[in-house]
């Protein structure tokens, strides 16, 4: 009887792991399919058939080569990178705050980056021409990244007393800081001229348009380490589900883990927001869908979130590029239209999900 029970519980205990491993493979498949579709979709007339033809015959016109190498591939890579960054950052934040509805925005990245971007757009116009030219198109992303990073550091400082970071204080200070950044942003918006307003609005809605190898090279060193090292934090995040004190008793260096997660998320989301603007809901919806299907174990959640987030953002970008072609919809609109109902569905499905 005991051995029977042992055998059964072992199989049921391992069921989630098996499902998570299967999910990993399915998500890799999805990623490949979406990537190929994305390469074959766009305003210029290079489609899947052309790509297949090129793959078989090994020849592609110079024009198509340029489209593929200079427009579609960097855009695909950017979508993958940013989608993965947002989803993994969301999963990390939710694990840290022990709340499935936490979002990278909580650490002030969004508000700080927004202020930085607006500052660059509005005040940047006043800079001597030489400086503006020197920075080229990089002034807004740079300011956004610095704004996001600065806000997170400030928030971290505010919530840390005597070596202990209070996650609850960080949440509350984040609300105050967000409101303050919003007020300053409002002042700048008030001062902005019509063209600047238009730039601002589009920036805040997010877009992968203008993705190039240069932008990719800026974002990659900030995002890739977070993606690669996040699985190392899985054990600590799992333990953190029992509470900070219990996690420490299990041997986790809790304060260092918090520090790593906060700085990692600030770097990854800061870079993502800087190069692509405000893209919402990926960070909440992706980890949550995965938790429903394969459980909350971060060992599987983090890599799977990276894959699903990447696929979803590339998919959303395909919609953004084609639905009003030849014009483009800001991708933040697409993710919000798709993500907000899913978010509501999650809320309705599980009452009492929020532990505060």
């Amino acid at each position: 009887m005991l051995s029977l029970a042992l055998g059964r519980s072992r199989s049921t205990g391992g069921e989630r792991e098996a499902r998570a491993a299967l999910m990993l493979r399915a998500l890799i498949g999805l990623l490949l399919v979406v990537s190929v579709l994305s390469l074959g979709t766009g305003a210029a007339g290079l489609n899947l058939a052309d790509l297949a033809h090129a793959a078989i015959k090994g020849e592609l016109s110079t024009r198509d080569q340029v489209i593929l190498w200079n427009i579609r591939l960097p855009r695909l890579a950017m979508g993958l990178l940013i989608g993965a960054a947002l989803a993994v950052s969301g999963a990390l934040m939710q694990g840290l705050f022990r709340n499935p509805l936490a979002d990278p925005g909580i650490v002030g990245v969004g508000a700080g980056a927004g202020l930085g971007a607006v500052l660059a757009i509005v005040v940047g116009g006043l800079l001597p021409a030489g400086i503006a030219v020197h920075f080229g198109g990089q002034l807004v992303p740079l300011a956004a990244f610095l704004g996001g990073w600065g806000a997170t550091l400030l928030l971290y400082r505010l919530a840390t007393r005597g070596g202990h970071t209070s996650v609850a204080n960080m949440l509350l200070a984040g609300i105050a800081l967000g409101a303050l950044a919003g007020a300053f942003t409002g002042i700048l918006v008030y001062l902005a001229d019509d063209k600047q307003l238009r730039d601002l609005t589009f920036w805040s809605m997010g877009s992968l348009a203008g993705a190039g190898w240069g932008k990719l090279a800026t974002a990659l060193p900030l995002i890739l380490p977070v993606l690669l090292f996040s699985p190392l934090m899985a054990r600590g995040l799992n333990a953190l589900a029992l509470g900070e004190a219990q996690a420490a008793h299990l041997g986790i260096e809790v304060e260092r883990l918090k520090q790593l997660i906060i700085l990692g998320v600030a770097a990854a989301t800061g870079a993502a927001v800087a190069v692509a603007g405000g893209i919402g809901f990926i960070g909440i919806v992706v980890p949550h869908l995965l938790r429903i299907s394969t459980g909350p174990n971060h060992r599987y959640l983090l890599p799977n979130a990276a894959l699903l987030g990447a696929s979803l953002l590339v998919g959303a970008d395909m919609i953004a590029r084609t639905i009003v072609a030849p014009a483009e919809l800001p991708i933040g609109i697409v993710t919000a239209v798709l993500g907000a109902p899913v978010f509501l569905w999650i809320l309705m499905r599980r009452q009492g999900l929020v532990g505060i």
Partner: protein
Amino acid sequence: MLQVENICVALNRRPVLCGVSLTARPGTLTAIVGPNGSGKTTLLRALIGEVAYQGKVTLNGLDVARAKAWQLAAIRAVMAQETQLAFPFTVLEVIRLGLSMGENADARDLPQRALAEVGLLHHAARNYQDLSGGERQRVQLARALVQVWNPVGAGGARWLFLDEPVASLDLGHQLQVMRLARRFADAGGGVVAVMHDLNLSAMFADKLALLAEGALVAAGRPDTVLTDALLSNAYGCPIRINALPSHGTWLLPQAVAS
């Protein structure tokens, strides 16, 4: 060996515990008893390094205030009064959290064995959040057991620190949990438990530490601590001890009508 030298704890600048010195040897079960608000849980939290204190606490020679989390985790496990879980982990997943990276990491069937010990094997695949309070307590005990599965290992004895381990349990499971703790001590490990039930403490503990108003009133064998005078004073009501001659232990503190 657990050595507590003259520790004081203040919470929000209010002193809640002062001048407590105590030793607990491997192979024994020590129960911390006392009335509500006497500082029992605070003392336990100091012993596990959860609150700052003045004075010194060493566990197997390791300074608790300075040791790294992993050093302490390798020799002692802690079971809190109540543990809220943030995400819907299964019972088995919760217990696996107790598997340390070192000596127990390879023993993959340990979680099942620990779960069988607390009689919850049939709940292995259930969502922890769906369990009753008492079942959660037993799952947490199993998790703690997994962390220090062998009562003696490299570097000395292993320790269990339990904060009211039987608080939400029925009579049968109270005995089950206390027997597990007793067995751990008999096998060479050390157990320190905050207890409310003086009878259970008298039955299972080798040593009682009686706290009252933030001070250690008495510490020693149960029959030296469970006296009418000490208990009546500590609990602020008249209490009489009855001995069961057949049993050998001192039992049944009994309130008398005044």
